[in-house]
């Protein structure tokens, strides 16, 4: 992969030099057309920006490390490594999937409970589909997280190659590649941490804290065990909701947020600009010639 990175850096360096030369050529051409001459300073500026992007690969790595450390510290996750967090997520989802399947199959075995089994299977079939989809999504995410450290630099430098093509031909694709590689490299490894953090918060607030309160009440007053038994189903339900929200719904929402961030960053890097505006640059001869033609 480092071979590709070196090649892409070489190509983008050459394209930046070509863009600079073209900018000088266009600026110095004795052509009395403002819309052509305005490309001169624009091309030179694009060349400088792509040279900055070329040099910023190390800076992006530093930024990535800083953001990851900052988020990990603020979350306070007990996991140091995304693969351990991912293994926890996958084991929980697999257990949920297996529990749902076992419940339906166990009820289906008894002939007396066959109507209940059919009702349960119709109730849980959607849940099963979503949990299985979430498992597939998390497995894809795990594969991407494993590949990302090698791939993102290549994608970023390929983005710079497209960005450095003269006359802004590949600018949109280039900025999209650069933005997506940065956002994915920073955001994707944080996904399992965030899911577990969210799950911990939801589960603690809705299930574990009421359970702790009830247990302390039972220690003081043994008759409160009736209340504990009565609230146990709702506590279990809340626990299940926490797992489903943080491990099944959250990844889809997180990927959506990452795609919105990628689009915004791509626009910030210059993907939204199409060409130079005539009002932003003033070139003396063109202005004079336009007044000349206007004056007759």
């Amino acid at each position, binding site marked *: 992969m480092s071979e590709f990175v070196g090649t892409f850096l070489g190509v983008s360096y*050459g394209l930046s030099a070509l863009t600079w030369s*073209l900018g*000088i*050529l266009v*600026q110095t*051409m004795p052509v009395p057309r403002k819309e052509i001459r305005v490309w001169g300073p624009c091309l030179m500026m694009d060349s400088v920006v792509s040279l900055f992007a070329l040099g910023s690969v190390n800076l992006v790595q530093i930024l990535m490390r800083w953001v990851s450390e900052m988020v990990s510290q603020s979350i306070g996750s007990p996991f140091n490594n995304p693969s351990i967090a991912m293994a926890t997520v996958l084991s929980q989802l697999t257990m949920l999937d297996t529990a749902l399947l076992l419940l339906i199959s166990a009820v289906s075995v008894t002939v007396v409970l066959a109507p209940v089994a059919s009702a349960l299977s119709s109730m849980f079939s959607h849940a099963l589909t979503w949990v299985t989809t979430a498992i597939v999504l998390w497995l894809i995410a795990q594969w991407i997280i494993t590949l990302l450290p090698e791939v993102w630099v290549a994608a970023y430098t390929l983005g710079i190659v497209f960005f450095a093509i003269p006359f802004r031909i590949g600018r949109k694709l280039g900025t999209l590649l650069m933005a997506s590689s940065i956002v994915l490299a920073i955001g994707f490894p944080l996904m399992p941490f965030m899911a577990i953090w969210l799950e911990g918060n939801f589960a603690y607030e809705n299930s574990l804290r009421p359970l702790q309160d009830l247990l302390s009440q039972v220690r003081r007053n043994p008759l409160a065990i009736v209340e504990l038994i009565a609230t146990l189903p709702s506590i279990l339900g809340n626990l299940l909701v926490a797992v489903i929200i943080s491990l099944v719904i959250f990844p889809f929402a997180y990927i959506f947020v990452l795609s919105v961030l990628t689009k915004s960053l791509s626009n910030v890097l210059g993907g939204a600009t199409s060409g130079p505006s005539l009002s932003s640059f003033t070139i003396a001869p063109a202005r004079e010639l336009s007044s*000349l033609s206007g004056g007759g």
Partner: protein
Amino acid sequence: MPIQQLIQQIAWATTMVSLISTGVFALSYGIGYLLRGAPIPFREWKEYGQGLVTDAIKSAFMAMLYSSVIALISWIITIIASAA
């Protein structure tokens, strides 16, 4: 097309464009002085000639500055990286 060949072609195109630019500087500079010195009673044409001369000098200066621009950018990036 092999990548090395592509890089060589880009380098060749850059050299050609730079050479053409050098010719165009001279042409613009000449046309500019021609217009400036021509015995024509239109002030706008003379101003346009002066603009061409200015642009030719500016572009020649920018062409020489490319290596300095690269050095400046790498210096700025080194400072930012060492500060981070």
